[in-house]
């Protein structure tokens, strides 16, 4: 019986299998091998981790189980991809997306046919799943900063062209309001609506003008309580809003552009006042966290922000404007990023929202040195 391998051949086969297993495991991309009915015959940990699974729980399942967890359209896209592989032997890159509550993962996938001699092994496909989330995010950032540069240039002339007619609308509405002070409530509310909308438009233009002025931060060392006071100073806070400073720590210093951070505070306050419909309480605090970052938190007693909107409220400039949130918060985010800091919002619907500005420890230390 010449076909029986001897011991040393067995050893070397085992070694080869181990070698290929190691290869599969150590590749930075997800690798999936499927048969003609899209059952997974081989898979690595990287692919499984996309779905937060161990590979043992993924192998021998059907790929469609996982495709259905991806964003809609994934099943059709995969079907198309497979058709192309059967026809041409390979396919072009296809992009899949997985959106969870915490993050969005972008995956770039290509696949090719595994050549096999045995008839029962026909139709085996190997696919390669590459995580391109970082790359996509960077591309989006570049696109955003380019469009903002153009916007900044335009905003000056836009401001002039729009403020002038708004001034005319505003004064005419006010005159009407005074002349029709004995008119019915409906008529009066029509006029008030004009005046209110003019004011909202002016706020938007003001944001654009703030944006145009947004240069590289001119940083110096500031006591954070002073910045908060200045931020409050430039805000229009109605008497019906109760402002509480709950700051307990003294002498917190940050290295910032005071004018820009005052704008951040003003925008958050104006957003809070809008959310509370001019009635409620705002708590302001400043503190050092465990990592020695300096934080400012601003909490309001408004209705809160819906969970699905909380990531979008800072993104007004590129098409995801959430109703009730102007451009102000987007400007806040840009200013904080220019300072190497962050801005976050947390909210329970009905429980108000908290905005936290975080200034990194580094930026603070470098200055005081």
């Amino acid at each position, binding site marked *: 019986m010449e076909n029986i391998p001897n011991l040393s051949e067995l050893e070397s086969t085992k070694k080869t299998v181990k070698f290929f297993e190691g290869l599969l495991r150590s590749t930075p991309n997800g690798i999936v091998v499927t048969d003609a009915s899209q059952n997974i015959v081989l898979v690595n940990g990287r692919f499984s981790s996309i779905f937060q699974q161990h590979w043992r729980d993924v192998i021998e399942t059907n790929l469609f189980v996982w495709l259905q967890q991806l964003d809609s359209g994934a099943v059709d896209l995969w079907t198309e991809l497979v058709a192309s592989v059967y026809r041409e032997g390979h396919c072009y890159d296809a992009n899949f997306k997985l959106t969870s509550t915490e993050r969005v993962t972008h995956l770039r996938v290509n696949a090719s046919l595994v050549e096999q001699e045995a008839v029962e092994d026909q139709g085996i496909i190997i696919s390669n799943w590459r995580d391109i989330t970082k790359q996509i995010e960077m591309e989006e950032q570049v696109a955003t900063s380019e469009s903002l540069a153009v916007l900044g240039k335009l905003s*000056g*002339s836009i*401001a*002039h062209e729009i*403020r002038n007619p708004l001034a*005319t609308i505003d004064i005419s509405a*006010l*005159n009407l309001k005074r002349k029709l002070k004995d008119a019915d409530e409906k008529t009066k509310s029509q006029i008030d609506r004009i005046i209110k909308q003019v004011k909202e438009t002016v706020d938007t233009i003001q944001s654009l003008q703030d944006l145009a002025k947004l240069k590289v931060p001119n940083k110096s060392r500031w006591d954070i309580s002073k910045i908060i006071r200045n931020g409050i*100073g430039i805000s229009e806070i109605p008497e019906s809003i109760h402002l509480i400073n709950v700051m307990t720590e003294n002498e917190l210093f940050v290295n910032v552009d005071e004018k820009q951070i005052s704008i951040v505070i003003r925008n958050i306050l104006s957003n809070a006042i809008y959310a509370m419909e001019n009635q409620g309480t705002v708590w302001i605090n400043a503190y050092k966290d465990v990592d020695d970052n300096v934080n400012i938190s601003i909490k309001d007693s408004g209705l809160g922000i819906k969970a699905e909107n909380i990531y979008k409220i800072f993104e007004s400039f590129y098409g995801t404007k959430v109703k009730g949130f102007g451009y102000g918060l987007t400007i806040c985010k840009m200013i904080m990023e220019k300072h190497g800091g962050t801005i976050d919002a947390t909210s329970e619907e009905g429980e108000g929202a908290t905005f936290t500005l975080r200034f990194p420890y580094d930026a603070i230390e470098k200055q005081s040195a």
Partner: protein
Amino acid sequence: MKTNRRILVVDDNIDYCEGIIDFLEMEGFDAKAVHDGFKALETIEEEEFDMVLMDVRMPGMDGVETFQKLKKISPNTPTILMTAFAVESRIKEALRSGVFGAFQKPVDNERLICSIKKSLHSGAVIMIADDDKELCSYLLDRFADKGYRGIVVRNQETAVLMASEKKFDFIILNANKKDINGVETYQKIRDFRPEVNIIIITDNKKETENLIDQASKKDVCAIFEKPLDIDTLIEAIQKTFDNRN
């Protein structure tokens, strides 16, 4: 019979002129509009006006330039500028050379009326920047008795904004309360209102004197220590005001 005060409106936006004239008439003023700087100078030479309300950006000659020329023809006519969007330095320049106030369009109409009324007033116009409410309201009463017009502001930004909307004869600053950083506010306002008389109220005169640098100290007309001797304060205001006029 006392006639209404007359206001000249200068703006190339004809629709806006009609709106603001209606508004001013409802407020009890007489108003007339012209639509460029040249026409404004001509009109001022021919007719009497109590004040001028003028847009900054106009074709031909802008509002700031018109104001400089107007000042030569009629030096005692206060001018308030309005601007939809103008370079900040241009506005600062106008304020420095004596424009009564500057507003951004759309104008806050209540504040505009307040500013117009102050510009037509013959007694001293005084800003009180202090967060002591009791003291402020007492000062306001005493000023009213003397025929002065007083305005109270409670923080630095409002003080600077108010100083750009109205030309004050005196600014009373609290120099050592945390909420109003007097010395800093004083320097900011001085930058575009070099003529204003500054009176500083402080808890500690020596400390405050050290804070104000030597160069600008000569501009401060008086420093008062708390508790405030209000009679002496009013006397000082009256004296400075009389001397200047």
